[in-house]
């Protein structure tokens, strides 16, 4: 039997705390590069104006120690726990919640979580949404993803007919981005999950957003073709940066897929605003 490696809950909390603070203050280079490229190529004057301010904001956030966006998100956490890890000194889920609580308190991040009916704020941005997987190995991989409400509100899960096929999926995704219009803070990144069950398609759509911006699906060439075709159609809508008009409605389209039931074609679209924040650490 493989030796179990001990990892303490304190270390897990501390890692999450640091990740959530870091990603709320610093934008990833992949996103920044995509925004700079868009600013160079955007044809609309108001669109270029918006992209210019968006890029400027990244510098100011860094210089002035301010979160990039006031919506510092619902805390979404992906954990991959190696099966040769022994978690000690507490409970994994409590450790994650405690790390999120510390990040939002000590990092001056906004608490944006409430009771769905009374709308009363939980005051510490918990509970985080946790997706845990057991994997091979003796490490824990943790991904922190603060997700803003404006772009999440423009996301959806549907079950299409198998007969709708590739064309139907593409039409549906383009239609979702068109309907979202200026609301999710374009330029957006469009995450698409195809197949699985209804809830797995939603998870695939969210996981698709974790890929570096613009990196195509390397597993299946049908998907990479769909990604580039949908991106082209979306950017022909005219919505543009912030909906002010232009050719940059989306920076990228990322698709993930799993087999599904013979009767079904689940499709989820998860829209991510241009402040696409996520970071990971391996313990």
């Amino acid at each position, binding site marked *: 039997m493989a030796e179990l490696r001990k990892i303490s809950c304190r270390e897990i909390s501390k890692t999450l705390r640091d990740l959530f603070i870091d990603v709320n203050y610093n934008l990833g280079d992949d996103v920044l590069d995509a925004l700079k490229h868009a600013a160079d190529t955007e044809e609309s004057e108001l669109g270029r104006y918006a992209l210019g301010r968006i890029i400027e904001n990244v510098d100011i956030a860094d210089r002035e*120690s*301010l979160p990039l*966006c006031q919506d510092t998100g619902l805390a979404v956490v992906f954990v991959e726990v190696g099966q040769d890890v022994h978690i000690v000194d507490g409970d994994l889920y409590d450790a994650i919640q405690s790390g999120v609580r510390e990040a939002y308190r000590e990092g001056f991040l906004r608490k944006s979580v409430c009771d769905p009916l009374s709308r009363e704020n939980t005051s510490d941005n918990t509970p985080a949404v946790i997706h845990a997987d057991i994997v091979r190995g003796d490490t824990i991989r943790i991904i922190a993803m603060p997700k803003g409400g404006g772009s999440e509100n423009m996301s959806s899960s549907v079950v299409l007919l198998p007969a709708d096929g590739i064309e139907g999926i593409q039409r549906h995704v383009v239609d979702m981005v068109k309907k979202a*219009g200026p609301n999710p803070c374009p330029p957006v990144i469009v995450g698409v999950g195809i197949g699985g069950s209804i809830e797995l398609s939603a998870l695939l759509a969210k996981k698709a957003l974790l890929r570096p911006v613009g990196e195509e699906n390397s597993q299946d060439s049908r998907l990479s073709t769909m990604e580039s075709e949908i991106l082209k159609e979306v950017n022909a809508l005219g*919505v543009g940066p912030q*909906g002010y008009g232009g050719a940059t409605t989306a920076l990228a389209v990322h698709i993930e897929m799993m087999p599904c039931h013979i009767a079904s074609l689940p499709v989820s679209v998860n829209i991510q605003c241009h402040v696409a924040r996520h970071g990971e650490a391996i313990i």
Partner: protein
Amino acid sequence: MEEIRKIQTPLTDEICRSLSVGDALSLSGTILTGRDVAHRRLFDAAVRGESLPVDLSGMVIFYAAPTPARPGRVIGSIGPTTSMRMDRYTPKLIELGLKGMIGKGSRSSAVRESIKEHNAVYFAAIGGVAALMSQCVKGAEVVAFPELGPEAMMRLEVVDFPLVVINDSKGGDLYEAAVSRRTGAPQSATR
């Protein structure tokens, strides 16, 4: 980009009439913040005929809830939330004298009609540039509903707040114009 025009609050009829869809502006002066729950409370009070905790005449409401300020700072990061969630309350507040709104995203046809009828204006602030916008805020004070935490209503003193006119008092809509320009559809919005 042409020279960016500067405007000052309170918004007068004359200022509102002079604004057109797609104008990029710098706004300075006093504005209020308020979002979902604050709007519902103002609306309910108005429907019941009670007096409001804030004076809305000539006022601008910014749909925003900032991050907590670090010690010694005026405010944390601040930026617009999606305006459509305030749509059902907005015409009533415009009737009570509200002249301007700052948010992001499309408004309902009822709000657009109300803007036209009462010579008001809807501005967008760029979403996701909250560190930049925070630099324009020189004063901040909670004026109503402190128990709402980040969603409390605040009075802000702002200098050169960067805004774009989305809906003007002539019935125009920048978002619709942007999409119809691309698709070649009739520009009903800019009639």
